[in-house]
């Protein structure tokens, strides 16, 4: 069962709130982070293991930006007829370049992120998705990013 905000104890909440960034780069980083939380290294490691196991955390570690490392991304949208939605979702999801795909309540009702190793890969993937589904794909590449690290309060 997944943890929810309601069932988290105060320590877990403090860990999630304190460690969404700034984890130390040193020989004993868990010990250093634990000291700031007033606990010991073994307790912090055990709590992180539990938070990962119950799905409260999706991962713990460095968050890489593939765009900064030469990969390419874009956001795409499609207007899929309701009666054809499941079939089209199956076709789109089968493309390995599709990293995330969401159904959204809008005339453009399918929104997915394409991730490829090169910028040229994006256009090729869009052409193949259009050919496989018979539907046009609108492409919304980012022009600018106004980003501040996400901090969710547990």
């Amino acid at each position: 069962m997944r943890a929810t905000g309601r069932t988290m104890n105060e320590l877990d909440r403090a860990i999630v709130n304190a460690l969404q960034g700034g984890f130390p780069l040193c020989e004993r980083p868990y010990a250093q982070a634990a000291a700031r939380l007033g606990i010991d290294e073994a307790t912090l490691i055990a709590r992180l293991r539990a938070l990962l196991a119950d799905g409260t955390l999706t991962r713990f570690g460095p968050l890489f930006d593939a765009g900064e490392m030469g990969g390419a991304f874009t956001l795409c949208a499609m207007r899929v007829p309701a009666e054809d939605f499941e079939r089209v979702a199956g076709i789109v999801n089968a493309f390995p370049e599709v990293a995330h795909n969401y159904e959204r309540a809008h005339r453009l009702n399918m929104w997915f992120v394409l991730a490829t190793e090169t910028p040229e890969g994006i256009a090729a993937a869009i052409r193949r998705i259009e050919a496989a589904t018979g539907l046009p794909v609108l492409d919304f590449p980012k022009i600018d990013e106004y980003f501040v690290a996400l901090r969710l309060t547990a």
Partner: protein
Amino acid sequence: MNDADIVRALQAGLPLVPRPYHAVAESLGVAPEALMARLGAMLKDGRVRRIGAVPNHYALGYVANGMSVWDVDDAALAELGPRVGALPFVSHCYRRPRRPPEWRYNLFAMVHGRTRAEVEAKVAEIAALLGDACRARDVLYSTRILKKSGLRFTGPP
């Protein structure tokens, strides 16, 4: 040791052992100090966004996920975009192209809340910040996750 090696060694996460960087460095066959210095450099130039816990929105109770989209005067976007991105409840904020006639919006701001009412209140804060520079807006709620995969890195070793 190139970027792809580092991503591959760490994409599953930092090992939950007392000396995690030492453990990773050993698997890569490099000195721990070199790995830590490299990660520090990657943090500085943006290849690493941050190091720490990545929470699951849904597990924390953030079940309302709205993609707010805004038609903002292009001339005002350079000044207003960073202010929207800096709002604590906006997780991702991008300028993207309009696609007329289907799509008039050029600013995308992802807003997470525990309820739709909470998202609506946050969207109203964005509207107040944008003021007269905003001509139209919409909020697209996700109704279903169709696919969610982690970032894969499939380049040659």
